[in-house]
């Protein structure tokens, strides 16, 4: 079965809901105890320091409260989430060796073809464990390291020890602490100095067991003068038990480097997506976030950029689409901590069918961040009067030499615009879809073609209400 391309025919939602009867080699007990943590660490054969780190994080987890703001997380019964599931296969480096049913799942998501055409390598996560991983020769030759996190802990121990959860620490909030204790899977990427990676690196995630959590950790270090585009795309089938995703992404952008981090999040409708993403940018460095948030039951997602060096730059372009029964609480945070730094935030949100879309943002300019400039633009489209859209931005400035502009708009699709399109022969539903696609175009044009097409299709599916 091959993935249908979306610009010719519609993609069916069922493709995303492929479910295999699961036969896993190992499954931890429900409930979070130090014993379970030890079990996880032992399974991965981890060095002592990582086990200690996990145990300290677990302690922190029990000390911290849930955040007092944001969507209600009471429904999430964390102690009943089975955190770690390892499939029967061990890690593979070649596609041919993978068992058929697992292969089928990835076939549906189009990975093999994509690998040949687009990508340098694929790290695909299957239920908390990296199943398949390969790096194209040309990229490996330049010294680019692209490994799953577990292997990296062994092969690049010093680097991992120094960087792991140094940017997002377990003390930051309860789900960061949880992540520190039970993290599993994810990618480690290291780009040596002066290397510009031509082709985007990409990874996929899946959660396939009822009640399984997703705690993958992405750690990317881009040394000075380099370039990388990393794509994170997610998909998960729907289940009756609440699913949790508490991943963590730490990005270190060194002097003069640029990192572009693109994501389409398309979690199934019962997922709690509480993801923490943070980038630290040094002088003359740049972080470009491109983000499309769809799916999940509740999302709390605020990629944060810390502009630590002079002339560092952060750009955030994002779209959030909340349908019925969804609360997508997303935003962007930028801290200007050095002079001559710039940030641009451009977000669009759409709420429909009773969905709630919330933009929660922050621009913070510290005392020494003189001559900083920031432009924020948030636009919200509410498609009917059952839905909700809230914009909650905060601007904190501690210096005078700053140029900060923020604007936000909320409204609906204008009847006049729909009429105009209809007088050109386009039916009402298609006219609406055109306007909404036009609305999110600034984001889709930043994504690689496959993703842009996937995103447009998601928008179409969401508008039709065939999802949820």
């Amino acid at each position: 079965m091959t993935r249908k391309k979306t610009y010719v025919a519609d993609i069916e939602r069922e493709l995303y809901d492929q479910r295999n009867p699961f036969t896993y080699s190992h499954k931890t007990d429900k409930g979070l105890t130090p014993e379970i943590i030890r079990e996880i660490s032992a399974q991965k054969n981890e060095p002592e320091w990582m086990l200690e780190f996990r145990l300290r994080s677990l302690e922190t987890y029990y000390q911290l409260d849930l955040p007092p703001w944001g969507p209600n997380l009471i429904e999430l019964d964390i102690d009943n989430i089975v955190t770690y599931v390892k499939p029967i296969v061990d890690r593979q480096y070649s596609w041919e060796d993978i068992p058929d049913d697992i292969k089928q799942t990835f076939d549906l998501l189009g990975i093999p073809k994509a690998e040949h055409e687009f990508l340098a390598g694929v790290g695909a996560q299957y239920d908390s464990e990296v199943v398949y991983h390969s790096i194209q020769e040309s990229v490996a030759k330049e010294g680019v390291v692209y490994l799953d996190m577990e292997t990296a802990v062994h092969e690049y121990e010093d680097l991992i020890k120094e960087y792991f959860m140094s940017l997002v620490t377990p003390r930051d909030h309860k789900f960061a602490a949880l992540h520190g204790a039970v993290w599993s899977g994810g990618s480690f990427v290291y780009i040596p100095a002066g290397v510009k990676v031509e082709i985007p690196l990409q990874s996929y995630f899946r959660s396939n067991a009822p009640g399984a959590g997703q705690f993958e950790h992405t750690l990317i270090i881009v040394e000075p003068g380099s370039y990388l585009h990393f794509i994170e795309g997610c998909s998960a089938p729907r289940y009756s038990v609440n699913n949790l995703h508490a991943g963590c992404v730490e990005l270190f952008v060194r002097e003069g480097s640029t990192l572009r981090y693109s994501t389409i999040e398309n979690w199934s409708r019962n997922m709690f997506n509480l993801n923490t993403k943070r980038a630290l940018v040094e002088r003359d460095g740049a972080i470009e976030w491109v983000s499309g948030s769809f799916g999940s039951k509740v999302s709390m997602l605020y990629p944060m950029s810390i502009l630590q060096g002079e002339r560092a730059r952060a750009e955030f372009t994002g779209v959030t689409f909340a349908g019925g029964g969804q609360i997508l609480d997303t935003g962007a945070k930028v801290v200007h901590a050095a002079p001559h730094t710039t940030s641009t935030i451009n977000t669009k949100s759409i709420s429909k069918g009773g969905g709630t879309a919330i933009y929660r943002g922050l621009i913070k300019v510290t005392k020494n961040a003189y001559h900083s400039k920031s432009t924020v633009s948030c636009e919200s489209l509410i498609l009917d009067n059952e839905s909700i859209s809230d914009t909650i931005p905060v601007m904190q400035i501690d210096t005078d030499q700053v140029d900060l502009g923020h604007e936000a708009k909320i409204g609906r699709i204008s009847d006049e615009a729909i009429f105009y399109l209809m007088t050109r022969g386009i039916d009402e539903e298609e006219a609406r879809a055109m306007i909404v696609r036009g609305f999110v175009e600034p984001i889709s044009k930043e994504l690689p073609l496959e993703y842009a097409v996937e995103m447009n299709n998601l928008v179409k599916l969401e508008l039709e209400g065939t999802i949820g």
Partner: protein
Amino acid sequence: MANKITQGLNVLPRISYRWLKVNELNFEEAVAMPLKPYNLDFLPPNVDPGLTLRKMEPGFGDQNPISTPFGVSRELVELGETNCNGGFNLLIREGTKLAEPLYFKYLFNEENDTVIDHNIIRAEKDSAVTIVVEYRADGDQPAYHNGVTKIFADQGAQVTLIKIQRLNDQSLHLDSHYIDANPYSNVRYLQVELGSNFAITNYLANLKENATATVDGMYLGDGERTLDLSYQMIHRGYRSTSDILVKGALKDRSRKIFRGTLDFRRGAHLSTGNEEESVLLLDPTVKSDAVPLLLSEEDDIQGGHAASAGKVDPDQLFYLMTRGLSEQEATQTVVKASFQPIIDELPSELRRNIQDDIKRRLVAENV
């Protein structure tokens, strides 16, 4: 006798990340608000027959209690209602349109250093009135002010409320406003904040169908002063219109937080709301926070906000300097120009004093 004030002032309708500490204002040490009489005259001298004007009685109970929580804090609103030593109860009868503004002036001195005023303004159908309230404290003696003002504007009524605060730098100014804008009414609020160590104000308007509520505010922060200005426009009825425009300038080590909320509730279709906040930052030691919230559960509305902060435009400065002004004079000119649209709305008698205050504060220390 004194009332202690500490925490939970100007709480945001939707809170943000805890670590930013913007969700509310808390005093590190409790501040005491004295409770004592105010013996100076503040009422306007003559009263039009179309009005009923009386000094406010402490503990005066409204026939229609206000169900929406409002004010700098619930405690402060209650304090204003039960222990007021000033304030007025004003009724403007149906069809009465006052040509001249009504002036209420509170002067503070050593014996009369506390004003707790509870004001109720009821504007009946198709009436029109302009009310000016001024709080002034010269010298060094700290002044304490806690005000609670409620405006009930009936169908077609036009009410303009102008508040001018010129208390010295040792003073405490707390001011809560509640507006009930009934269909086709128009309530304007002009706010001038030019003093106090802490100026903490709160404004909330409930807009019914076809009502209009606007805020034009200006402030100048200097020295060690702090301003916390909160505004909430709640659109409940269809075709309601709101507009918030606040302009300010900050210098020395002053700080300000602007909290503006446009809230469109279900049923407020065809409503429009606009919020604009801009501040000129005149020294590297100032702090400026802004939280412009835009909330909506109704699709057929138009809501927008714009917030900007920055130094005086160097091109503007350059232009003025090529016409012979020093940098200092040019900066003052630009700051005063940004306030001019609001100053022009004020009755002419008041403009001089305000312009003098601005000039005095801009010149002190630096700038």
